[in-house]
């Protein structure tokens, strides 16, 4: 018993004596927030992204690698609104890092900065895996990204005051490029107004809301329930009578159900990158929207 305690004590001293990190250590839950932190911080932050665009953010596990990153993060940037409910609480409790606990400056939820859509009227799991706080997939409306960027830059300035001016200046620069890009995207996407679409999961709602797309069905019978044959049959019948222009699924979702419905209903299945890294063109936040809009325009033609 004495030996392990001695080792613990020695390790504690070693850690206490270790020099403080010069740059901001950021753990981003999803790639879009990792990309946003990089836009604002440049080389003033070391960013580790917990998930990739090929991973369903609902179904991630609290892997050892993530616990280790939570341990040494100065700032946690996550979507919130229960998107990471299955794994973030475990990272917080197992990571044993007081500075990123809920309510601390090191805990940043993007969903808190925007108005959430689709607030559930009733909370009952018989309605599927509903998110009590509203739809958490906020990143496909670029106006949300702008709001999050402002709040994030201020939060980063608060945590690393030495680099505060860098963060603010880079954010101003990002905002001006972003607003120009939004105007460009809105002009490009004008033909998409009222375009009827089918989605896999209700994770495209903010894009629909921004561009005026009209969602007429989902591949999932209920949120979080994988597509069932009976539901797909109903959907195909509906699409034959009242066709959509695209069946949209995210890069992390299996194309099987979308392609099946597409083959049966002659409505094209369209993969969207959904987040940074979801396609070759979606290398950063600008590429994410460039690619998403051009894929939708291709389907519209």
């Amino acid at each position, binding site marked *: 018993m004495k030996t392990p305690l001695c080792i613990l004590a020695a390790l504690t001293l070693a850690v206490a004596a270790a020099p403080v990190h010069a740059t901001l250590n950021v753990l981003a839950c999803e790639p879009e927030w990792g990309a946003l932190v990089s836009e604002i911080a440049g080389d003033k932050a070391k960013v580790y992204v917990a998930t990739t665009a*090929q991973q369903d953010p609902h179904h991630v596990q609290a892997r050892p*690698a993530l*616990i280790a990153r939570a341990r040494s993060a100065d700032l946690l940037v996550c979507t919130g609104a229960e998107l990471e409910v299955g794994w973030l609480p*475990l990272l917080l409790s197992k990571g044993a890092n007081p500075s990123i606990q809920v309510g601390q400056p090191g805990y940043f939820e993007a969903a808190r900065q925007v108005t959430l859509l689709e607030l559930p009227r009733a909370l009952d799991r018989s309605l599927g895996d509903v998110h009590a*706080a509203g739809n958490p997939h906020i990143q496909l409306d670029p106006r949300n990204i702008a709001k999050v960027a402002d709040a994030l830059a201020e939060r980063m300035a608060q945590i690393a005051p030495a680099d505060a001016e860098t963060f603010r200046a880079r954010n101003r620069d990002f905002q001006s490029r972003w607003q120009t890009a939004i105007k460009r995207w809105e002009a490009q996407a004008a033909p998409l107004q009222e375009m009827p679409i089918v989605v896999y999961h209700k994770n495209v709602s903010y894009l629909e809301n921004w561009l005026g797309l009209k969602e007429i069905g989902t591949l999932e019978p209920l949120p979080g329930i994988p597509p069932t044959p009976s539901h797909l049959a109903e959907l195909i019948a509906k699409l034959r009578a009242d066709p959509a222009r695209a069946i949209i699924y995210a890069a992390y979702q299996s194309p099987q159900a979308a392609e099946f419905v597409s083959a049966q209903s002659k409505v094209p299945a369209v993969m969207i990158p959904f987040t940074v890294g979801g396609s070759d063109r979606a290398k950063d936040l600008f590429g994410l929207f460039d690619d998403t809009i051009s894929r939708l325009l291709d389907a519209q033609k």
Partner: protein
Amino acid sequence: MRRTTIAALVLHALLCAAPAARAASDDELAQIRKQIEDLKATYERRIQALEDRLKQAESASKQASEAADKAEAAAQSAESAATKATGRPQAANAFNPAISLILQGQYGWVNPDPDTYRIQGFIPPSSDLAVGARGFNLGESELVITAGVDPYFTGRLVAALTPDNEAEVEEAFAQTTRLPYGFTLRAGRWRSAIGYQNEQHPHAWDFVDAPLPYQAFFGGSYLAQGIQARWVAPTDLYLELGFEGGQGLTFPGTQNNTSGFTANSFFAKIGGDIGVSYAWLAGLSQVRASPKDRTFDDIDSAGGLVTNSFSGDSTTTIADFVLKWAPNGNPAERNFKFQTEYFWRSEDGTATFDQFGTSNVVPGPLSAAYSSRQSGWYAQAVYQFVPRWRAGLRYDRLNSGAVTNQLASGLGLSAADFPLLASYNPSRIAAMVDFSPTEFSRLRFQAMKDDIADGVTGYQYWLQYIMSIGPHGAHQF
């Protein structure tokens, strides 16, 4: 003289001027009056105009202020909507803890009779072995209540309602949240962090029951009671060290009525990712207990039920390894999990035969030296081949190893008086398929063939349901 003249002149001028003014007054006054009246009229008009404008301005400002009020109200409602949207608590009951409930049950075909279920070669845990009864069984219903106490602590209670209508405290602990340098302290009772599966609740297991080594060495799972200290290293590779110390609560320890530390454990865990598709975790842990009069029942050579006991030191060491795979690290569609643990136990002390003096062979109690060096392991693999469906295989193996039981030599007793301790290497194989409609429900079928005692081959088939109600469960690794 000149002064007089000047004065006269001035006087004259003054006197003459007055009548001249008086003479001008009639015409001019009228003019002036008219001018004044004009002026007055003009002013009145202008005042009227000003008044009108004031009135307009006033009404405009009223409208403006009404508009402002409306805007404010709109802002407030927007804010309250935003408040709702962001899920900020609205009422005092938002401080209620998260409460979840796990409902479990199974239907079993078990042969031979589950009452005769004994793992040969191993001193059995005092509690019942984890094999379910035949037919319809209710599993343990677990009630989990958890919440932050304040900025410094969180608390958690796991109450198990057993099918025998008993309520058990499975876990009840408070834990720190704000200690620096990666430390966490905990006090209370909890599922010990030793091994891999031990910390997981039965509803999170991949098979209906615990692997054979867990049953033989810990009676299913090992609970710790006392204090726990954990430390996570500030490295990119996950490394965690921990110590648990306190009162022996479950097998292999006993509650000894002392104020010292009678059961302690140490653990070290290390893990990380290999590329994006693989993640691994390895651990090494040890439980050191000092059981006192740890009783177990056996049947002596005359066929009588006797209660024996063990007192001494028991040290169990566990090495565990878990590897998970999912295409692109996305387990939603397909995933694979491999898990194995190796157990090695040494016990040194005194064994007592027939604690209550009921034996017809030699009435006890009789005590003599006892020591054992025993081991066991299991390996299991579970594959989710399509969403919702998983299949798994598990192989369990125990090695009764070297046992020195001085009671069985001399003192009028023989090995036949300790049939449970007769050397044997039990093994078991299990296969399962489960279907999880959502993350909150799971239905499972499991088939097992066991060879846990000399000349006894057992078959078990289980149909099981596991349902969770309440907050979203944790995706443990």
